[in-house]
C-alpha cells in the first residue's frame, strides 16, 4: 500500500542557484501525483530529494509521516524509475527485476519465482532469460516498472519514463501505468514536461516554474481554472488581451483593452499586472454584431485539423486571435477573408496575473 509524502518549506540550492524554492505540498497515500513544468523548473530535483540522492538545503520531507533526514536512498521506501530506465545491460531481464531482492539477501529460487510473478504482472511472460538489448522500448519500460515494484516500495518515483517512446506507444503506456498504479495502490509521483501526459494520468497535478510550485489541483481545475498566466499558457493555448480591470461585481470584472471592453471572471491577482486569457476552443466566430465580448475581425486562414477546425483571424485593432471550432456542424465555420466577430462567454474568460508565483 502506498504512503503519503509531505514536503514542508523545501528549499534546494546548488551554489548560488536556487533549484527548488520553498515548496509545500502533501501527497496522499495511493495518489497519482504529477509534477509538471518546463525543463529546469526544479521538478527533477524534488524527485531526487524524495529518493535521497539530493538533500534539501532547508525544509523537511516526510514519507508516511516519518522524517527522511539522513536516510540514504536504499533506506527509503521509494523506488525510482529513471528517464533512461537505467536497466543493467549486463544482466538478464529476471536478474534485473530481482536485483533489489538479491541486495536484500533473498535466495536465488525465491528471487526467480518473484521475478516471474512480476513479469506476469507487466505482461512479459517468457522474457525472463533475455538480455535487455533484445527488448523493444515498451518492453524495457515494463521491465523498469517491474524492477521498481519488486522491492515493494510505498512510493514510486517516475522521471519522465515515457519520453523516449514513440508517440503512439506513449499513449498506450499511459493507460498501462495508470492501471498498474490502481492495481498496486502504490503512491506514484510522476515528473513530466508533457502537459497531456500529466493531465491524462494524474489524480492531482502540481505545476512548477522557476523552482516554485505555481498551482496544485486536479487536472480539470488546472486546465479550466489556472491561477496565473504561466499555468494557463503551459497547459494549453490562449487568446490573450492586455488591459486594465474596471468595475467588479461578484467575481466578475470589466476589463478595458485596446480591442474593446470585455467582461470576465476575476482571478486572484494580488495587485500584480494582469491579462485576460481565453482558450481557443471557448472562442466562437459569429456574424452577429453587438454580442457581449466580441471583437470585429477578418478571417486570415481556416485550417482543417480533423477533429476540429482552427480559425486564425486578425482584429481591426491589430490583435491575432485563434478559435478552435467543432467539426460537427454545430458551430459556424467562416471562410478565409470573411469579416465577422470573434466572441467568447464571460464565464470562460479569466483575468489572471501575468507572471508566475515568485519567492516572497
Amino acid at each position, binding site marked *: 500500500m502506498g504512503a503519503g509524502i509531505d514536503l514542508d518549506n523545501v528549499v534546494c540550492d546548488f551554489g548560488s542557484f536556487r533549484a527548488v524554492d520553498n515548496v509545500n505540498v502533501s501527497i496522499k497515500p495511493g495518489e497519482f501525483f504529477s509534477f509538471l513544468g518546463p525543463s529546469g523548473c526544479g521538478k527533477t530535483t524534488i524527485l531526487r530529494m524524495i529518493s535521497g540522492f539530493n538533500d534539501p538545503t532547508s525544509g523537511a520531507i516526510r514519507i508516511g509521516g516519518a522524517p527522511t533526514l539522513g536516510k540514504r536512498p536504499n533506506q527509503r521506501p521509494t523506488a525510482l524509475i529513471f528517464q533512461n530506465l*537505467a536497466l543493467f545491460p549486463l544482466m538478464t531481464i529476471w536478474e534485473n527485476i530481482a*536485483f533489489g531482492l538479491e*541486495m536484500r539477501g533473498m535466495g536465488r529460487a525465491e528471487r526467480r519465482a518473484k521475478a516471474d510473478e512480476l513479469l506476469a504482472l507487466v505482461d512479459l511472460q517468457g522474457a525472463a532469460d533475455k538480455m535487455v538489448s533484445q527488448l523493444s522500448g515498451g518492453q524495457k519500460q515494463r521491465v523498469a516498472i517491474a524492477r521498481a515494484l519488486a522491492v515493494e516500495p510505498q512510493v514510486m518515483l517516475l522521471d519522465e519514463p515515457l519520453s523516449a517512446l514513440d508517440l503512439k506507444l506513449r499513449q498506450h503506456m499511459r493507460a498501462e501505468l495508470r492501471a498498474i498504479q490502481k492495481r498496486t495502490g502504490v503512491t506514484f509521483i510522476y515528473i513530466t514536461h508533457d502537459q497531456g501526459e500529466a493531465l491524462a494520468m494524474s489524480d492531482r497535478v502540481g505545476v512548477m516554474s522557476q523552482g516554485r510550485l505555481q498551482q496544485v489541483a486536479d487536472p480539470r481545475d488546472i486546465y479550466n481554472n489556472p491561477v496565473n498566466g504561466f499555468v494557463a499558457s503551459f497547459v494549453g493555448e490562449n487568446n490573450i488581451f492586455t488591459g486594465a480591470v474596471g468595475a467588479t461585481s461578484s467575481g466578475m470584472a470589466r476589463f478595458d483593452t485596446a480591442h474593446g471592453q470585455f467582461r470576465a471572471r476575476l482571478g486572484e491577482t494580488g495587485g500584480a499586472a494582469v491579462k485576460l486569457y481565453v482558450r481557443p476552443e471557448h472562442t466562437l466566430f459569429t456574424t452577429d454584431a453587438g454580442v457581449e465580448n466580441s471583437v470585429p475581425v477578418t478571417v486570415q486562414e481556416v485550417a482543417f485539423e480533423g477533429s476540429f477546425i482552427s480559425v486564425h483571424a486578425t482584429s481591426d485593432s491589430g490583435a491575432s486571435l485563434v478559435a478552435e471550432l467543432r467539426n460537427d456542424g454545430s458551430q459556424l465555420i467562416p471562410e478565409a477573408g470573411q469579416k465577422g466577430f470573434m466572441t467568447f462567454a464571460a464565464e470562460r474568460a479569466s483575468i489572471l496575473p501575468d507572471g508566475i508565483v515568485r519567492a516572497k
Partner: protein
Amino acid sequence: MMTDKMRKVLYHLYMGSFLFYLLVPLVIMSGAAFNNNKTPSVYPWKGFSWQWFIELWNDGTMWTSFGNTIWVALAVVALAVPLGTAGAILINSVTGMTRSVLYFFMVAPILAPGAVIGISTILFWNKLSVPVGLHLSVLGQVSYIAAFVMLLVLARLQSFDQNLEEAALDLGATHNQVLRRILLPHLYPAIGAGAAIAFFQSIENFNVTLFTRGTQNTLTVYVFSKVRSGITPSINALAFMLIALTLIAALVYELRRRRQAALEAAREEEGRRASDAEIA
C-alpha cells in the same frame, strides 16, 4: 590525368608492398631457425634442420630468463591493473585543474624514455636501501604501464551510464555491491584489455628492465645479450615460437571478439524488430 581506377590499383599495390615490408623480416627470421647453418641466416640455404630447436630446449639460461619474464609480467599485471583502474575512477570524478594535473602525472611516463624511468627507479629505491633486481623492474614498468590501463578504463568509463549506479543504490545495494555488481562488470572488457596490454608491454620491455634488473635476465635482455655476443640460430628458434604463440593467441582473441560482436548485433536487431512491431 590519373583515373580513379588507376589510383585504386596503385593504392592496393602500395598496401601490398607495405604488408610485405612489415612481414617479410619476420618470415626471414623464422626461416633462419630451420637453416642448417651456424650463423642465423636464410641465405645461403644449407638444408632443413631442427637442431636449433633442440639447442634452445637445452639452453638453461633461456629457460631461467623465460621464467623471469613471466613472473615479472604477472607481477606488473597484478599491480598495474588496480593502480590504473583506481586512477581512472578517481580522475573521472574530478574536473578542472585537479584533473589536468593528475592526468599529466599519470600520462607523462608513457612519453618519457624507458632508460630514464629505469634510472630514476633504481636511484629512488636505492635511497630507501632497496637493492637492484627484477622487483625494481616490476615497479619501473608499472609506473608507465599503469597509464595504459588508466587510459583504457577511462575511455570505457566515459560510456558508463551513472544512472545505473543510482538505480542500484535505490534498489538497496551497498557501496561494495555497486562496485562489484554494476561498475566492475561494465569495466571488465577494458580491464581485460588493459591486463593483456600490460602483460605484453612487460614481456616486450627492454629499456626499464636493462637498468633495473641487476644481474638477472629476462627474455628480451637475454636475446639482446646473445645478439651482441655471438649468436646461434637458437635465437631464431625462440623467435619463431614466440611469433607462432602470439599469432595463435591473437587469432583466438579476434575470433572470440567477432563472435561476441555478432551475438550482440543479433540481440540488438531483435530489440529493433520488437520495437518496430510495437509501433505498427
